[in-house]
């Protein structure tokens, strides 16, 4: 059975009732995994408390933080600090240099190009010559919160982003970007909406299920204490310790 994921929920973290409402709604609309965005300096206890709320509601939880670096140096410095703390890291790319650096860095999971920014992802696509490690994230809230001419402009911008991502074979992830319960949407509904932007429906469904789940599984493996490097895991600690004693 397909498991649907929403990797970008931004609840008001001080309001527990709002968090509970969003978690329950996520369960109702068929999301099996959700990621809440926390500020970088959030204590681990707070993250764990949210994890417990989600577990009680029957929803898998992932922690996420969003970075908005002003330059590549800033990005690398912050990444070093937060990579081990959060399961998902998204980068808001406001400039070409940041976008290039974030795309190359394997510690970045999601590239988000804000619709308000003057920087256009598609215009500099030729600069992404090296393989891109991160996935492109499309937030559905960018489409739903505007109307009329503004929405038309954003639809055009997002469809150009999707076109470039398809051309460069960058994985695509569809998220809601919801800050409250009334901005949350069902995964199939989000996929249908994004399919209007030039992505076929099957790929859009993959972008709400398989693609984000792959990113999450990969990161959870890396954050596991037994992980050594890609393909190497520390599995039988006791035996190795015993072997050392014998020698």
């Amino acid at each position, binding site marked *: 059975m397909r498991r649907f994921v929403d990797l970008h929920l931004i609840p008001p973290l001080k309001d527990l009732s709002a968090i509970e409402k969003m978690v329950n709604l996520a369960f109702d609309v068929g999301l099996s995994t959700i990621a809440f965005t926390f500020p970088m300096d959030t204590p681990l206890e707070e993250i764990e408390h949210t994890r417990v709320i989600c577990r009680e509601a029957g929803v898998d939880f992932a922690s996420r933080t969003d970075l908005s670096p002003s330059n590549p140096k800033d990005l690398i410095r912050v990444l070093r600090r937060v990579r081990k703390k959060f399961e998902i890291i998204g980068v808001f790319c406001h400039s070409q240099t940041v976008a290039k650096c974030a795309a190359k860095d394997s510690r970045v999971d999601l590239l988000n190009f804000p619709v308000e920014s003057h920087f256009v992802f598609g215009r500099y696509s030729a600069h992404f010559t090296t393989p891109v490690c991160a996935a492109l994230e499309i937030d559905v809230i960018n*489409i739903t919160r505007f109307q009329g001419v503004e929405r038309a402009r954003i639809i055009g911008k997002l469809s150009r982003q999707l076109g470039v991502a398809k051309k460069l074979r960058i994985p695509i992830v569809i998220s809601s970007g919801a800050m409250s319960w009334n901005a949350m949407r069902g995964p199939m509904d989000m996929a249908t909406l994004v*399919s209007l932007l030039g992505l076929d429906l099957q790929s859009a469904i993959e972008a709400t299920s398989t693609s984000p789940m792959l990113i999450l599984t990969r990161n959870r493996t890396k954050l596991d204490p037994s992980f050594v490097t890609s393909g190497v895991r520390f599995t039988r600690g006791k035996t190795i310790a015993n072997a050392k004693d014998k020698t």
Partner: protein
Amino acid sequence: MQKTRPRYLAFRIIAGKPLSQFEVFNAISNAILSLHGEYGLACANIHLIEFDSEKNHGIIKCDHKAVNLLRSSIVTITHVDGQPAVVFATRVSGTIKRLRQKFLSK
């Protein structure tokens, strides 16, 4: 003339206040009009079959080619009659009998 095949879409609304059938139909029509225009609304050929204002569940009929059009439009609904609201498509079926069976079994 090409035969049109209907599709029935079950949906659920979460809103701050109880809604009438007219308000719901208006909100859905306006959403289609806003995203797909007058031609899209005409092609969709939507009819609100039923709406339970207590449970906030409803069934809407549309043309088989317009299911994705309808589904993508209801995502854009953020307010109904000035109140914050959210609409979720729950199931789609080709016959209303089957939809009710699926709907009630859930």
